[in-house]
């Protein structure tokens, strides 16, 4: 447990050393710049658009970090041959893998938390001095606490994507892992369509295969409640709980398979 925690902390330190958190600066510049420009272009929809932009940027930056660092977690150690010295230490392979995963999730959590704080700061600035009458046009208050629900589910989605990236990186090259993870991300947003598509097929065998595929692939669309939150629609805690439980089981499954592959891998 202690070894896993140390590995996780080191992954976080390494990402800080690698200047991964620089993306926060871009995020802040993007939001501040957009808040300045958008007010003049959107006919009173600036708060909605800043919320959309902030949440989308958090998702995109998070996705990039999860994919491009996730795929390097294992392959980098193998390429640099540092995996030999690591495995020579009294740690199990599963500890190494889970530690790496937890470290990246920690990096993502810090990243997403800072971005959420920056988004609230920009929204506070934009809503400063806005009359109650003018604010009536907003579907939800500018500093809506429900934004945290969308941010939380976004982080949950990123934990799944990190697990996917780590899974692919245990047996594939970094380039291929990145392509496969991005592919899974795209497919993960269309699993419901895949299910509907299966209903339209004449062949029962193909339809059955599609249905199995639609349940087996990660359903990432369920973590996207951004539009609901921005429009002031309620997102039930029960829904969030079920989606998070799904993510926890899916991540555990992927980590188990990754550990299995990694523990059987021959580094000679």
């Amino acid at each position, binding site marked *: 447990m202690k070894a896993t925690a140390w590995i996780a902390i080191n992954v976080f330190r390494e990402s800080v050393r690698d200047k991964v958190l620089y993306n926060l600066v871009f995020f802040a510049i993007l939001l501040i710049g957009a808040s300045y420009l958008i007010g003049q272009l959107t*006919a009173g929809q600036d708060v909605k658009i800043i919320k959309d932009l902030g949440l989308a940027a958090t998702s*995109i930056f998070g996705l990039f970090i999860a994919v491009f660092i996730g795929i390097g977690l294992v392959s980098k150690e193998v390429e640099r041959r540092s995996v030999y010295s690591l495995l020579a230490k009294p740690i199990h392979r599963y500890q190494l893998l889970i530690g790496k995963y937890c470290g990246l999730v920690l990096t993502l959590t810090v990243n997403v938390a800072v971005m959420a704080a920056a988004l609230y700061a920009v929204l506070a600035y934009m809503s400063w001095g806005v009359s109650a009458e003018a604010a009536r046009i907003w579907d939800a208050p500018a500093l809506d606490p429900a934004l945290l629900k969308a941010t939380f589910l976004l982080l949950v989605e990123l934990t799944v994507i990190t697990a996917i990236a780590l899974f692919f990186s245990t047996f594939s090259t970094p380039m291929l892992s990145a392509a496969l993870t991005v592919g899974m991300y795209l497919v993960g947003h269309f699993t419901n369509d895949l299910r509907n598509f299966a209903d339209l097929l004449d062949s029962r065998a193909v339809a059955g295969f599609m249905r199995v595929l639609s349940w087996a692939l990660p359903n990432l669309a369920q973590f996207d409640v951004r539009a609901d939150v921005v429009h002031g629609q309620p997102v039930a805690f029960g829904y969030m709980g079920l989606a998070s439980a799904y993510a926890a089981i899916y991540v555990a499954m992927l980590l188990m398979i990754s550990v299995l592959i990694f523990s059987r891998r021959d580094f000679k």
Partner: protein
Amino acid sequence: MRDRPVTVAVGVAIVAALMASASAELQAVRDRVYPPRAIDEDSLYIRSGPVLQRLTVAYNALAADVYWIRAIQYYGDGKRALASQAGVPGAPPMSAAPTSEAFALLYPLLDLTTTLDPRFNIAYRFGAVFLAEPYPGGPGRPDLAVALLEKGLRARPDKWEYMEDIGFVHYWYDHDYREAADWFRKASELPGAPWWLRSLAATTLIQGGDRQSSRVMWEAIRQSAEVDWLRQDAERRLLQLQALDQIDALQRAVDDYARRAGTPAPDWLALIRARVLPGTPVDPANTPYLLTGGRVTLAQSSRLWPLPKEPTRLVDRPPS
């Protein structure tokens, strides 16, 4: 020795700054010598909302925002271009015939916006006003305005505002007061609808089309407007109605003068000298009215120009 790297860095920074300004200057020179061709054709590469929904994956709402900004710019640019063609600031040519190109992309842009984000409230409400505005202020398509609002109602059947807006489009642009009254009534029956919608429905049905009922409607819109733009538009409409009243009163005075003098007044000065008027009459936007050939009209330079087409009263029309 330690100063050397600093000197080199400063030198590089200065040279880089000089090169950047030189490249900018070169572009400006090239634009002056070989002016870039104006892009006279607007294009929308993807017109299918569902396809765009798939392409934008989890970023539908952000894509909707982009299309909304594009729709606003497209509408604003179109209006500005038509105004500049007329050569009179803010006064587009009312005589110009609508063309198929004018505002042709407005509905597709709004349709894409609302398909990507079906709860984009303002896109329905503003979009409907943009679409219904008569040429050259807009494409003059109240049918598309109603279609957009009905799409909004399918997404949010509880929005009485959309029903009110449909009634408003029928009232103001179609002059179909029965239909307008029907929509106002339907809107008034939804939870949260304001009390005045019921009386607006009754007034529209009984007096539809007269200035007083128009005034009631615009006053209601002005008071309930959530957005400055809608409030300012309602205030402008109220001033236009006031201008119509003033033109009627002035026309009566001009006609009386012509009857008494046996000749139409050549200009306002004749009426001022005859003590019919204390001075040159101005419209509610402070622009002097015109008197040409014995007819009182609003100046094209007025912010209130063009005045709305006077609607015919419901009772004057044969029942449909």
